[in-house]
């Protein structure tokens, strides 16, 4: 199966060929995966410059696509993202690779599960968390078609199949009182496995900002909501609260609980340690009061 990252490089190279307004700004990472092109600018290992250059290109009417490893794209040049893009009111497409604990054996320096929360704190960002390479392709094409600020978060974790449709998409209906479990991006397959024998409504979301508040409010028939986000736990909790201002509700927000895990190993080991594998999610769901579909 094509990884999201492989798909991105193919799409990026094609976009440079097809659209003269597209320019790419890289900081070494990914350059070797791309054919040379006069509008693919590699600034070397200079991430502050990477964002500033993207802003300058946007001033000139270009559609800059900026790509690097998550901590070096979002965290290191965070003030550039805030000011050079946001405050200047300029657009860019930021595409990260290396989600949460993808780079488990590299340790904390190469992990940024705070990425979505950090960008969501800034105004005007569309945040895409594709769960499949096909969803990445859809998000990338959509991002190139306008001039806003878009963050697309690639991950080595992916679901077996893409989900069609935009916004919050209900995939499985439980009883009316059952919790609404919203799986984000690559967390879907583990969530579906976790809830297989539970009375739960399972929905999917890959565009997390703007958050589909109306879709959430419409999908919820009981009082209980569970978020399963493959990044910092609670990142979208305030969105759920705003979506449900008109009714009492309970929220369980699952996600990366321990950013400083201080373990190496595999992504699967990290997923389990964060409680984001099927067993961990199931345990959290049952502790939250989710009932089994039939007596054992």
């Amino acid at each position: 199966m094509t990884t999201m990252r492989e798909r991105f490089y193919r799409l990026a190279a094609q976009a440079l060929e097809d659209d003269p307004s597209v320019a790419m700004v890289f900081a070494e990472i990914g350059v070797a995966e791309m054919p040379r092109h006069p509008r693919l600018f590699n600034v070397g290992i200079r991430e502050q410059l990477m964002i500033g250059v993207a802003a300058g290109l946007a001033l000139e009417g270009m559609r800059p696509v900026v790509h690097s490893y998550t901590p070096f794209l979002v965290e290191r040049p965070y003030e550039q993202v805030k000011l050079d893009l946001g405050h200047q009111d300029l657009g860019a497409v930021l595409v990260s690779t290396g989600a949460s604990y993808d780079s488990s054996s590299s340790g904390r320096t190469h992990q940024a599960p705070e990425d979505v929360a950090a960008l969501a704190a800034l105004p005007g960002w569309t945040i895409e968390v594709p769960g499949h390479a096909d969803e990445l392709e859809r998000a990338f094409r959509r991002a190139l078609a306008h001039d806003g600020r878009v963050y697309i978060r690639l991950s080595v974790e992916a679901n077996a199949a893409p989900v069609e449709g935009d916004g919050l998409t209900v995939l499985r209906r439980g009883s009316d009182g059952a919790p609404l479990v919203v799986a984000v991006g690559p967390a879907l397959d583990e969530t579906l496995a976790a809830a297989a024998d539970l009375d739960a409504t399972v929905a999917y979301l890959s565009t997390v900002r703007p958050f589909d508040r109306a879709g959430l409010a419409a999908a919820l028939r009981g009082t209980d909501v569970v978020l399963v986000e493959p990044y910092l736990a609670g990142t979208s909790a305030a969105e759920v609260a705003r979506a449900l201002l008109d009714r009492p509700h309970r929220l369980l927000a699952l996600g990366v609980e321990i950013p400083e895990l201080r373990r190496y190993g595999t992504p699967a080991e990290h997923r389990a340690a964060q409680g984001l594998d099927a067993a961990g999610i199931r345990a959290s769901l049952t502790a939250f009061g989710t009932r089994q579909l039939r007596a054992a």
Partner: protein
Amino acid sequence: MCHVTAATYDDLQGLIVRLTGDEKHDWSSLSTLDVLWTLYDRVLEPGDRFLLSKGHGPTAFYAVLAAKGILPVDELDGFGGFDSPLGHHPDRTLVPGVEISSGSLGHGLPIAVGAALMGRRVYVLVGDGELDEGSNWEAVQWAGRIGLAPLTAVVVDNHSSTYHWPGGIEGRFELEGWTSAHADGRDHDALERAFRARTGDAPHVVVAEVERR
């Protein structure tokens, strides 16, 4: 609406007083006054971009924009007020002629590099203290190495960097592949010559030295 006619350099003082009222003049803004005037009066051509990276103390900038008819003179009166577009750091979305919003140091040069990549002639003004910020050097290094000829930086050097620039500011740019010129930051003819000393083969820096405060 006030009808704007081409103002002269001597009109700037009145415009600045109109901005600052009874407040004491901000020396930092005035350090840029002659460089800004020379750029807008003699150097910038239609289609060029000017980015004020050192956005702190922008009264000289607003005054020059007003003198050149880019900014309505009437706007000067509300400087810093809630209903005024003119803040103590400029906002490009509020003020005609302001091409970047600045205030936090070290952002203008990298943005200027990006704008110059597509062939636009771009001038960016930074301060010698501002050069403390490492982000500038990312831009200086890369622009020099790729020979980004449409880019001109002007460093207004009022010796405000606490740790100074031993060996000089120009040399640091030259090492990275820039051409450079030094000028008295109060001498309009010398400044114009320094700006015109760009060869067109490399990015160019003008170090405009003004009196230490």
